[in-house]
Structure formats: structure tokens, C-alpha cells
């Protein structure tokens, strides 16, 4: 069975996101009232698997996120 997977990896709450700060500042300089901009990482891929939940969870823990500094979430949908 084939699945379409999206994963979002975010820096944990309270950890400084320097890239987000710089982009937020740039938007403020353009006149927008932007605050607390963060830059999560977004992954999308197709996965052939009988146990997609388990495999995606593993992928996040093993490589896509660093559990010390990141939280992650994902969605898994069948490829139509």
C-alpha cells in the first residue's frame, strides 16, 4: 500500500530560532506587524509500507528530527 506522507519538524517552544527572527525582522522592515515568526522544516514523500505510522514515527526519531531540540507532527494519507 502506498501513502503520501507530510512531516513538519519544529524547534521546541522556548528555543531561539535565529532564521525565523531574521525573516520576521525583514518583514517588519517592510511594514508588516509580524511577531514570533518561526521556520519549521516541511517534508513530503511517498511511502510504500504496511505499517506507515510506525515507520514514519521511526524516521522522525532516527533522522528527520533531533528529539533534544525538535517536536514533530505528520500526516499519512493513502495515495489515490
Amino acid at each position, binding site marked *: 500500500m502506498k501513502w503520501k506522507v507530510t512531516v513538519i519538524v519544529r524547534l521546541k517552544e522556548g*528555543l*531561539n530560532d*535565529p*532564521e525565523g*527572527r*531574521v525573516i520576521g525582522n525583514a518583514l517588519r522592515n517592510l511594514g508588516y506587524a509580524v511577531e514570533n515568526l518561526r521556520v519549521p*522544516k516541511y517534508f513530503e514523500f511517498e511511502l510504500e509500507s504496511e505499517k506507515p505510522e510506525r515507520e514514519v514515527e521511526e524516521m522522525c526519531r*532516527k*533522522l*528527520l528530527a*533531533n528529539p*533534544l*531540540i525538535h517536536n514533530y507532527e505528520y500526516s499519512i494519507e493513502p495515495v489515490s
Partner: protein
Amino acid sequence: MVKFAVIVFPGTNCDFETERAIRRAGAEAERVWYRANLRDFDGIVLPGGFSYADYLRAGAIAARQEIMEEVKEFAREGRPVLGICNGFQILTETGLLPGALRPNRIPRFLCRWVHLRVEDTETPFTTLYEPGEVIRMPIAHAEGNYYVDDPSKVRIVFQYSDEKGNVTEKANPNGSVLNIAAIANEMGNVLGTMPHPERASDRFLGSEDGLRLFRSMVEWARR
């Protein structure tokens, strides 16, 4: 003569300088591709550079290559494992050293000389330094901002300081907790350093302070 492996991943670029510094410190050194085996070596150095172009997170992809299982075995046996800059990032990503290296507080690549205070001279890599001594080495990184949940449990080896050895906020180039520049594992045989000792290993480079790190390591491996 003791012999060190300098592991080369796709994107590593400090391997030649590191090899040369180890030789200057009195040991054999060989650059080895990351698919080689490490059986014939007495120690391992993971040099600086940009393994896998720093994609995903610096060091993350190199840390998941098969050769790192051998490096872990080396570390468990108490043999010396040194990670410099990208090598330090790889060591935290494998879990051989605690913590993580985040993007610099000001998100840009930093390349400059820094002062360091030597905090721990009991590791195999620092026996030739004086406790509290101030040394000079260059840094060159975009992700050197060291983070750990509980810094009191970390074996701090070098801290960023001013030229008098004061560990101040101003002397912290990248936002690392407690100005941490280099740490060791509990046993002391695994060291990660963001500053580049190989770039301070000859007078013509501007400092020989880094050479003593390699000399300490070589002396210890000989025993």
C-alpha cells in the same frame, strides 16, 4: 608508531590539514573514505567540513552512516575519538556526545579567531595545557551554538573567553550555553571541539595552540 584515521565523508574539507597536524604531532595519519574499515587504527578523527552539504542538520546524515557503528565501538573501548567542527556535530548527532549544535545565535557563518579558556586538562586531548590557560584557535561554522538540557552534567573542556580568560557574554561568538566551545564524554576519550586545532598547529598559521591538542592525543594513544 600509532596511526590515526581521518574519516572523509562527501563534503569533508579539512582532512588534509588535519592529517598534517597529526603527523606534526608525531603519529601516522591516513585519510580514509567513509566506507573503509578502521581495524588497523589506534584513534579516529572526524575532521571539519560540510558532510552531505550540511543538509537537514549539520552532521545528521554522516552520523547515520554505517562507519559510525565502528566509531561507536572504538569509543566504547576507550580509544581516542576526536571530532572537529563538523566532526563535533556528527558526534552529538550519533549520541557519542551529549547535546546538539544549533544554528548560530546570529544566523550567519562565522570565521574568525577566538580566545578559549582551558577548563579540563584531565582528558587525553588536553594533558599538555595548563588549567585555566587562555589559548587561541579559529572558528568557522554556521551551526556551533551548543545546547544541552542540563549543562551541569557536561564535561566542559574549552569555553569561549576574552584574552584574559573571562568567560563573558561578549566573548561568546555563537550563543552556546555557558560559552561552551568543546566538551568530552564522561570517560574523556571522546572530544568534540568547534574551534579548529589543525588551523592553529603551526606558527605560520598564527598560533601553535592547537598542536598541543594533537600532541596530547598522540602521547596518550602511545601508552
